[in-house]
């Protein structure tokens, strides 16, 4: 609501037509991004759709996808918010390196991420070996493995979003709280956290959407077994090899869910201070 008058004001300042050098590439960019989605919609076998979507395999994959993405988001919240706070509010040697490492999964090919996870947390991995020997826990080929893979690729989205919000938030409120006797953790919990809640929410939604679409790390680290590790993107990939119509239907579901989530996020993001 608040932003409305401001937006209107900005529009008045730009009454002249949009310059062509901006308009042309902008439109090309829009077409480039939207055209594949249009292709998906045009080629969707609408008449077969109800049958495709009610088949047990699809529901199994969708349910697993939603559960795993939600659990992965919970993991990123528990670990990522403190990490973002550390990056935004403290000074320590090598902070820039840590920041680069945290964002690495953003640019790392997901398959590479999956291989790295196997080598670290697999049954024979540097850490996974001990998990197996001490606790009898093996992560690959389990639903927990899917959550781990998804959290790995989704966490940077949350950390970046929360760190940005923290940097924009005024640290003097926290300082005031600590001078009034609150411990630093209490100040974080009672002052900072409510202050940056919109940023956390935006980051969580982004992370959730990323986790939902995760493919490479999941198929490499968690494998592919219906009902246990076969999420929607994996089901789409394998369906494409035998039944393209099913793959299109599955893709459509994933697309609809993602658009709904991102569209819901947009306004919230815009009004974040």
């Amino acid at each position, binding site marked *: 609501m608040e932003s409305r008058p401001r937006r209107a004001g900005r529009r008045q300042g730009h009454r002249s037509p949009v310059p062509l050098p901006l308009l042309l590439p902008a439109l*090309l960019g829009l077409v480039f991004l939207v055209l594949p989605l249009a292709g998906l919609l045009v080629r969707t076998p609408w008449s077969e759709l109800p049958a495709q979507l009610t088949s047990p395999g699809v529901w199994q994959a969708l349910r697993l996808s939603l559960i795993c993405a939600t659990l992965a988001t919970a993991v990123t919240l528990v670990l990522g918010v403190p990490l973002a706070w550390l990056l935004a509010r403290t000074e320590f040697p090598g902070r820039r390196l840590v920041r680069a490492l945290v964002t690495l999964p953003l640019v790392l090919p997901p398959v590479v991420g999956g291989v790295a996870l196997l080598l670290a947390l*697999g049954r024979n991995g540097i850490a996974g070996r001990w998990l197996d020997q001490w606790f009898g826990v093996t992560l690959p080929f389990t639903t927990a493995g899917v959550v781990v893979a998804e959290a790995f690729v989704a966490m940077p989205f949350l950390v970046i979003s929360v760190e940005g919000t923290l940097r924009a938030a005024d640290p003097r409120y926290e300082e005031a709280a600590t001078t009034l006797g609150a411990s630093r953790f209490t100040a974080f919990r009672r002052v900072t956290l409510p202050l940056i809640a919109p940023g956390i929410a935006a980051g969580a939604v982004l992370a959730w959407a990323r986790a939902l679409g995760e493919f490479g790390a999941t*198929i490499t680290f968690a494998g*592919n077994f219906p009902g246990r*590790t076969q999420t929607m993107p994996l089901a789409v990939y394998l369906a494409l090899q035998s039944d393209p119509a099913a793959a299109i239907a599955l893709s459509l579901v994933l697309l609809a869910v993602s658009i709904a989530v991102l569209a819901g996020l947009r306004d919230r993001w815009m009004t974040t201070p």
Partner: protein
Amino acid sequence: MTRPTHRRTLQLAVGGTAVLLALSACSSSDDSAGASASSSPSAGTSSAGDLKGTVTVFAAASLKESFTELGKEFEAAHPGTKVSFNFGGSDALAASITSGAPADVFAAASPKTMQIVTDANDAAGEPATFVRNQLEIAVVPGNPKDVASLKDLTKSGMKVALCAKEVPCGAAAQKALDGAGLKLTPVSYEQDVKSALTKVELKEVDASVVYKTDVKAAAGKVEGVEFPESAGAVNDYPIVLLKDAPNAGAAEAFIAFVRSEQGAKVLSEAGFLNP
């Protein structure tokens, strides 16, 4: 004032278009896995004497080692040619061919996947079976779980990776299991034979059912256990020239080379059976 603006407009538009073109070029060469395929002059009508340009071969993942070797020998025999490969699951390759990926030759790991291409009228002529492949159980070196038969894979506590039923190695494995009357629940259905093998190499699973040739190619990293039921699930590998081949002349020569005595030698050394 207007002139420089216009020029800049033009520059930007041209620049933007160039970027888009470059991007689309990238994506199409990704499909064919041969960046030079689209840019090389096509020698569609050249005779066997002056073969030129790139031959783009889409081949089943299980052919990776032997075809890479054959490609090198072919290039040596025909200077000026380059063989560029796209290895993957046969189904995925067939799907990209039927959706228009620029390729010259398709070598599939099963007649069923080849049929996807022939049914879509994308093949020039009849596919020819050039090798056959038999299954083998791949186990971790030293065979710590004492796998001696297909039945041993169904023991409790065994972690097995199978190929997905959609890809030929998975279909063959299922056929062997059905033939033996065994029911096996793997921990994962992998998307192609190489990823099933990799899980054994990394010791993340105890065993997987792959081709003999894959075990041979990964010698030292996995051990093979033969099983009699594999005789009932031998896969035929067909090869065909594609209809829209950008470099048909050289492609035909490559197919002839694969089917020649020299080619058969490389393939049988890799563990393939002659048809």
